[in-house]
C-alpha cells in the first residue's frame, strides 16, 4: 500500500530528510537548554557573558544549518502521488492491522461503487432493461437497485430527443441530432400553422432570450399558458388564469411565478405531465400539435362535470385532468 502511494517520492532523500528533521530538533533543543542553563560559572562577569553569547550563537547557527539542509532535502523528496482516491481517508491504508479492521478496502469499494452509480443509472435510463454485462460482475446490490429502477422507468421511455447513443457512455457523440437545431423561421411557421388550426386559441411567439421561443397561448377566456420551447421541443409550461398578469414588473413575460389559483396550479402540473407524455423524437411538430389539442380541451374547464363521479367539484376543484387519448375530463382523484 505504501509503495502505491509513494510513487514519485525519492526514498533516499526522504530518509535523509527525516534524519535532518531529527538534527534540527536536537539543535533547537540545545538552544533552549543553553538558555535555560544560563551563564556558566567563570571567574569574571565578562568571561561568563562572552562564553554564553558564543555558545548561543553556535547553537543558533547549527539550527540555521539544519534548517537549510532540511529545506534542500525537502525539494528533493518530491510529491507523493495524488491519485489515491480517498484523499485523507486513504491514509487509513497505512494501518498495518489489515486483517482485523479491513476499513480501507471496504472504503475503496464503497467509493468506487458510488462513483459508478450515476453513470450506470444514466445508462439504464437510456437503454431500458438491458444490463451491461461488465457491470454484473461488480456489485450485487447495485444490480438489484438498478434492476428496480429500470423496470419502473421502462414503462415510459424518457428519451425525448433523437439522440443516438453509442455502445458505451465513453463514446458519446459530440454532434447534436438534427431535430434539436432547427432554424427559427421554421419554428415560427410551425407555430403559426398550429395557431390557425384552432380558432378559440391564440398563440403569440416571443424570443426574449436568444433563439428559444416562448409562446403565450390564450385559450378563450379561460386560461393563459406560457410554453417555453427549445427549438421545437416543449421544455416547460406554466398555466395561469385569464385575469392574471402574465408580464412581470419590467414588462417581460413572467415565466416563473405560479398561478394564484389552486385550479390553475393543478392544471400546470397536468400540462407538465402532458408534455412528457407526448413524445416523438423524429417529428416534434406532431408533438406540439398533440399538446395543443390536449390543451384546447380545457376550454370547458369550468363547465364539464367529471366523467367518473358526475360532480363538478371535488375538494373545491373542478375536473382538471384530461385523458391523453380521449380528452375526457376527470377529477385528479377520479382518474384511473
Amino acid at each position, binding site marked *: 500500500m505504501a509503495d502505491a502511494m509513494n510513487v514519485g517520492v525519492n526514498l533516499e532523500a526522504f530518509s535523509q530528510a527525516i534524519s535532518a528533521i531529527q538534527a534540527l530538533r536536537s539543535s533547537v533543543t540545545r538552544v533552549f537548554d543553553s538558555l535555560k542553563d544560563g551563564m556558566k560559572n567563570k571567574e569574571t562577569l565578562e568571561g561568563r557573558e562572552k562564553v554564553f553569547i558564543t555558545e548561543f550563537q553556535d547553537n543558533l547557527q547549527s539550527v540555521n544549518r539544519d534548517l537549510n539542509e532540511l529545506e534542500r532535502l525537502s525539494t528533493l523528496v518530491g510529491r507523493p502521488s495524488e491519485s489515491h482516491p480517498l484523499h485523507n481517508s486513504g491514509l487509513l491504508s497505512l494501518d498495518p492491522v489489515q486483517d482485523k479492521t479491513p476499513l480501507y478496502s471496504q472504503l475503496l469499494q464503497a467509493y468506487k461503487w458510488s462513483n459508478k452509480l450515476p453513470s450506470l443509472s444514466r445508462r439504464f435510463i437510456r437503454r431500458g432493461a438491458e444490463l451491461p454485462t461488465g457491470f454484473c460482475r461488480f456489485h450485487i446490490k447495485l444490480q438489484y437497485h438498478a434492476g428496480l429502477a429500470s423496470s419502473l422507468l421502462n414503462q415510459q421511455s424518457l428519451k425525448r430527443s433523437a439522440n443516438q447513443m453509442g455502445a458505451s457512455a465513453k463514446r458519446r457523440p459530440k454532434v447534436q441530432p438534427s431535430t434539436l437545431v432547427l432554424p427559427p423561421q421554421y419554428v415560427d411557421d410551425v407555430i403559426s400553422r398550429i395557431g390557425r388550426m384552432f380558432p378559440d386559441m391564440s398563440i403569440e411567439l416571443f424570443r426574449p432570450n436568444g433563439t428559444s421561443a416562448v409562446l403565450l397561448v390564450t385559450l378563450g*377566456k379561460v386560461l393563459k399558458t406560457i410554453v417555453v420551447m427549445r427549438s421545437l421541443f416543449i421544455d416547460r409550461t406554466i398555466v395561469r388564469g385569464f385575469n392574471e398578469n402574465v408580464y412581470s414588473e419590467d414588462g417581460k413575460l413572467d415565466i416563473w411565478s405560479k398561478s394564484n389559483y389552486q385550479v390553475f396550479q393543478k392544471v400546470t402540473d397536468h400540462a407538465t405531465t402532458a408534455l412528457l407524455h407526448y413524445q416523438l423524437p423524429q417529428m416534434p411538430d406532431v408533438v406540439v400539435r398533440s399538446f395543443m389539442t390536449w390543451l384546447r380541451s380545457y376550454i370547458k374547464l369550468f*363547465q364539464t362535470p367529471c366523467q367518473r363521479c358526475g360532480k363538478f367539484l371535488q375538494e373545491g376543484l373542478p375536473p382538471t385532468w384530461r385523458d391523453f387519448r380521449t380528452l375526457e375530463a376527470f377529477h385528479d382523484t377520479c382518474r384511473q
Partner: protein
Amino acid sequence: MLNNVLMLLTVILCVLSPLLSVCQVPLAEGKSVQQTIDILHKKLEQLSAVKQGNFTVDCETYHATGNASGQPTKLLYVMHNSETPLSCLALFEGGPCLTADGNFDVLMIKLKSHFQNAKGHKVESRGSRYRYCDFLIKVGAVTMSSSARGISVEVEYCPCVVPGDCWNLMKEFMQSFLGPSIPELPSVFATKPEGLYVPADCVDTMTQYLELFSKVRKQQVLPGTTR
C-alpha cells in the same frame, strides 16, 4: 326586538365572479339572524374553509332635487365595498353608473343642493369572509338603521371570469353549505347584451347588492308572536 319577528326572511346573495342572485330562504325555526349566521359559519368551517377577516358593503341613498314636478324623484345610490376600499360606486337604479375614488363622498356633501342624503335609508351588510380553495364566501348580516333585516351570502369563484361557464359549478358548491334552496341565475347577467358569456366585473356585484338592498328596504317587518 329580533325575537318578536315571526319569520325573518333571509335574503341570500350569490356572487359569481361576481355574480349575485337573490333568493329568499326562511330561517330555521326559532333562530335569530345571528344564530343562523353562526350555523352557516359552522357549515363552512366543516368544509375546511378558512376565515380571512371581515367585510362591509354599504349603500347610501340620495334624492335628486330640482326635478320637474310630476316626475318621480330620481334616486342616486352611492355604494362602498371593503374589497375595493379606495373606490366607491355611484349609480341610478337601472341607469348609468360611475366608479369613483373615495373622495366622491366629500363631493356629494358639496352637492347638497342637488342631492339630499336620505339618512334613514342607509343599508349595510357586515360579516366575515371565508376562503375555500378558489372560492370566496362572505356571510353578513344586513342591517338598516341598526335593525337586522336579513342575511346576505356572497359566493365568488375567483379563477373564472365568465359567469355562464361556472354557474353549475357554483350551484353545486352552494348546495354543499346552503342546503337545497339555491338561488337562480342573477338577472343582471341575463340583461347584458352578450348574455352570460361576457366577463363580469365589480359593477355587476354592486348592482346585485343594490337589488338586494332595495328588496330589504321594501320588506315589511312582520309583527307577531315571539317564538
